[in-house]
């Protein structure tokens, strides 16, 4: 197990290197630099600015400098927010996105697994069809449709919550629900499939024959195997929730990392964009590793 984790961690180094290189050169292909949009910057000040950020050096030298700092975990200064480093900006906006994403994922797991288990216990019943039908709706209503609809109904018409902002705990409900529902729907489908397969196996029949209670059969015998498809879906789901939060944060005007990334990309804030992409890559790689470990723990038959 230790060797598996160590090997996987080693593998992430070339991946992150490729991501950093690709992003670094891609943003530099943009016509127009970060200081072009500023009004009336005299040429000498622009030169000063570029010298300060090292933009006057040859690109390859800039690249080596960047890698050198990256190895020490320094993502460089922001071009647009004077005197703020990319690390600081990520540190101040990521907790918001993390909270949003965590709540959405929690909600998705809770709703999805419950609905999936219920549907699997009574396959092809009215209950099953209702749950499956609602899941399909959840999958086909994208967040950018669902979000505005939620705002229209719950904030503007019923006035239960605020339409936007991120101040008190009630502000968390709509964004988290919007982001989580599609994943809840998907998880429900995966849970249903996984549980149906497990529930039809011999050892479940044996457990039933021995008089185990329904609750014991579900929680003790079937969930562990039935949730395997859900666990392997968690890696892609986490990546999707991360990027999904771009839209949610735009709709609900939440000061998170996703919205910040999109604005930085529009502003040609090179270091910020590169830094956030690398940060996302680290997060996703790490989360996938976590998912793989959980999978092996749940299913000893898997080899690593």
């Amino acid at each position, binding site marked *: 197990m230790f060797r598996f984790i160590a090997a996987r961690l080693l593998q992430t180094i070339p*991946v992150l290197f490729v991501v950093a290189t690709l992003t670094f050169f*891609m943003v530099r*292909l943009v016509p127009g630099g970060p200081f072009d949009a500023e009004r009336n910057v005299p040429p000498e000040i622009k030169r000063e600015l570029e010298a300060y950020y090292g933009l006057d050096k040859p690109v390859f030298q800039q690249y080596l400098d960047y890698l050198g700092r990256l190895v020490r975990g320094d993502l460089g200064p922001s071009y647009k927010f004077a005197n703020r480093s990319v690390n600081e900006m990520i540190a101040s906006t990521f907790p918001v996105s993390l909270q949003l994403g965590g709540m959405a994922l929690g909600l998705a797991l809770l709703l999805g697994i419950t609905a999936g288990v219920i549907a699997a216990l009574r396959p092809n019943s009215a209950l099953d069809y209702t749950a499956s039908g609602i899941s399909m709706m959840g999958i*086909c209503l*994208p967040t*950018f449709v669902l979000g505005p609809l939620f705002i229209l109904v719950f904030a*503007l018409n019923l006035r239960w919550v605020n339409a936007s902002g991120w101040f008190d705990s009630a502000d968390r409900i709509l964004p988290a629900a919007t982001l989580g529902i599609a994943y809840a729907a998907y998880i429900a489908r995966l849970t249903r499939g996984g549980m149906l397969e497990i529930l039809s196996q011999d050892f479940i029949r044996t457990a039933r024959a021995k008089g185990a209670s329904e609750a014991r059969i579900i929680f003790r015998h079937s969930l562990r195997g039935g949730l395997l498809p859900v666990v392997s879906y968690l890696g*892609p789901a986490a990546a999707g929730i991360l*990027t999904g939060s771009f839209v949610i944060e735009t709709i609900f005007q939440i000061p998170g990392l996703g919205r910040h990334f999109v604005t930085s990309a529009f502003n040609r804030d090179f270091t910020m964009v590169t830094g956030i992409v690398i940060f996302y890559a680290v997060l*996703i790689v790490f989360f996938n590793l976590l998912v793989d470990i959980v999978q092996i723990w749940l299913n000893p038959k898997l080899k690593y």
Partner: protein
Amino acid sequence: MPDVAEIDAAEPGASLWRDAWLRLRKNRLAVFGGVALIIITLFCLVGPWLSRYTYEEQDFAQYAKPPSALHWFGTDKLGRDQMTRIMHGGRISLGVGICATLVSLTIGVLYGALAGFLGGKTDAAMMRIVDILYALPFTVFVILLMVVFGRNIVLLFVAIGAVEWLTMARIVRGQVQSLRKQEFIEAALSLGLSQRRIILRHMIPNVLGPVAVYTTLTIPAVMLLEAFLSFLGLGVQPPMSSWGTMIKDGAELMEEFPWLLMIPAAFFSLTLFSLNFLGDGLRDALDVRTSKD
């Protein structure tokens, strides 16, 4: 023992597809999806010729009016006919969906088939690359690409297609690999069928099923990604509009003019529904086991 030609003649060639068709017809949701899809496509393709309005023509007497006899789906804040705009938006959304899917289909099938045929170490290396690519935040790259190279529609579907090919490659590779070991391929070999005949008659039809199923399921995923980019302001640019940009514009004005959000959203969701139902139906009909991961 009857000879090879007779066995072939006894079993009509299209039987796999005919069986699938019979099964598909019994699946009400899939039939609903297929019919809805045909209607929406015809509406978007033929509609603009029958419409009294063009998509950029402004009716100065009718700013942001709800649906009426004159404008069935109402008008937007510039007085443009919403129905005509929906038709044009649909052409773009469906067009991007299909083109990007074709790009991903080409890359995925070629890559997967190659890995499956070559096998061994090459296969292992090729699939390891796919694993690594899976772990990257691709949507982030597409956003970056759209920002960097301007919002060019050709680039849009190439970029999306380049992101979506991974799963297709895995499916095709798995299928090719398992087919090579199957008894009926061995049987065909021992009956002395030519290599070409085996590939044409036995390999391709068996790979075609999963590919068809997954293609149907990729189109909605691609359309979703396009709408997602358009919603962030990175997709199709005005005066052109896709359903994604219409939803974005509608969402900004939904308080006063809810139909500007509701109608494009309804069209978009209905299309996604139809494609997903049809894809699921095809999967059951062709008896394909696809795993999304």
